[in-house]
């Protein structure tokens, strides 16, 4: 009877390893540390099969905030980073963790708020809107996670002349989570939140939320891609990683990005340098 149990256990282990093998067998793969906005908007779900069909390379995406993605790369746990906070990316390059930075695409941020608009921001530009939110102490949800969106949000407060770290009150809620979670929270507390348009368009749980401010030039959001430096981490798959980057900035990749639409709306606008290398 003990024997029957152990043979059952062995069968289970074999079955389990069979479940793992298909994935492990592919070594034609790279790990890309990216942001939750590119994942949550569905862009990767659209792009990666196209890339794989062309090159046979499997792209495994770890979706974290920009700051966390760059930290993952700093530990050598990713081959490529694809994020949207230029200042953080340039710091990453300066520290020697990246090889070269390429612009890939942009989208814009939008200020999301409740239809009741307690701070009266409708029709304003982004800086006035933020000042109004602070004056009225309307609830505002911050990503608070060193993501690209969080960096942009902090930069906007600064441009509006507000030292948010010093002047924030209980109305300013830092949740330390991704964009979807931030939108859920804003909806639940009838507050404002800065979001990228891509995530907003594919977000289902809108409740009472709508776009309060958009179109301001200061809400422009640039995405960049970098290969992690193989000199720092010899384990980086540099050929495959570079192939991915090359494809993203190539005409084919750029067209694919432009082709991604939700409800007929284009989410991301390709802007890689032509003849880029």
């Amino acid at each position: 009877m003990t024997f029957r149990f152990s043979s059952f256990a062995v069968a289970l282990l074999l079955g389990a390893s069979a479940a793992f093998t298909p994935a492990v067998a592919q070594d034609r793969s790279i790990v890309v540390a990216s942001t939750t906005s590119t994942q949550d908007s569905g862009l990767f779900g659209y792009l990666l099969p196209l890339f794989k069909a062309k090159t046979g390379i499997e792209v495994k995406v770890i979706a974290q905030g920009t700051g966390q993605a760059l930290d993952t790369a700093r530990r050598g746990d990713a081959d490529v980073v694809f994020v949207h906070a230029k200042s953080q990316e340039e710091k990453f390059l300066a520290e020697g963790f990246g090889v070269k930075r390429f612009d890939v695409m942009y989208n814009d941020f939008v200020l999301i708020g409740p239809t009741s608009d307690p701070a009266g921001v409708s029709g304003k530009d982004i800086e006035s809107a933020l000042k109004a939110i602070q004056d009225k102490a309307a609830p505002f949800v911050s990503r608070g996670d060193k993501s690209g969106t969080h960096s942009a949000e902090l930069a906007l407060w600064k441009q509006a002349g507000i030292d948010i770290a010093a002047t924030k009150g209980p109305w300013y809620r830092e949740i330390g989570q991704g964009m979807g979670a931030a939108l859920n929270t804003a909806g639940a507390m009838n507050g404002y939140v800065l979001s990228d348009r891509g995530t907003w368009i594919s977000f289902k749980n809108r409740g009472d939320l709508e776009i309060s401010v958009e179109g301001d030039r200061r809400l422009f959001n640039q995405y960049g891609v970098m290969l992690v430096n193989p000199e720092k981490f010899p384990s980086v798959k540099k050929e495959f990683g570079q192939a991915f980057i090359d494809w993203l900035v190539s005409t084919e990749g750029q067209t694919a990005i432009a082709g991604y639409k939700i409800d007929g709306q284009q989410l991301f606008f390709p802007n890689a340098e032509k003849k880029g290398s």
Partner: protein
Amino acid sequence: MSDELSAWQLILNGDPALFAIVRLSLAVSLSAVVLAALAGMPLGALLALTRFPGRSMLVVLLNALMGLPPVVVGLAVYLLLSRSGPLGAMGILFTPTAMVIAQTILIVPIIAALTRQTVEDLWAEYRDELTAMDVSPAGRMTTLLWDARFSLMTALLAGFGRAAAEVGAVMIVGGNIDGFTRTMTTAVALETSKGNLPLAMGLGLVLVAIVLSINAAAWGTRVWSERQAG
């Protein structure tokens, strides 16, 4: 996985992505239970049958470790397996193997602690008989573990429940990679953060239904076994 269809429709259509996620969740958690049993049951039995200075402290520690936060285990395993970490050269971060390791670490204390209690209680009952039959120390362990098998099955189910339900460890060491390390729980977390609450809830209910079936199967096995062997 399509956002538009509900979880129920995905099941009916035999959506391959959903089935891949279910398969992975079960493979990871069941493997973790098997490994944790292989490590934890002998450990628990040994602790039940031996006496040494500091034993009480060890028992208390083991009981306390049942409450290890999954996210802390995940973080610790991540730091071990990261390329910058001591075991980075193995290159198993962000793979199902890392997830199995993390979950095994998480549930070994549960299985060991429950085994210890069960075997200790049984030893109180069996002590005279086994001593009178001059059973060796190793023999005592195997005899008690086998005779306690129905209670130990409950311990295994407790371990499995913990593993199948957690999201913190597998999220950190697996990375929730689409088509590769996405499990039921990380999928629920993802869909929730995307605002697809009905789909997230549906997936959650599918997970509960699966765990329920496994428990029902274990119950059926026990009833059948009891009829055979009392």
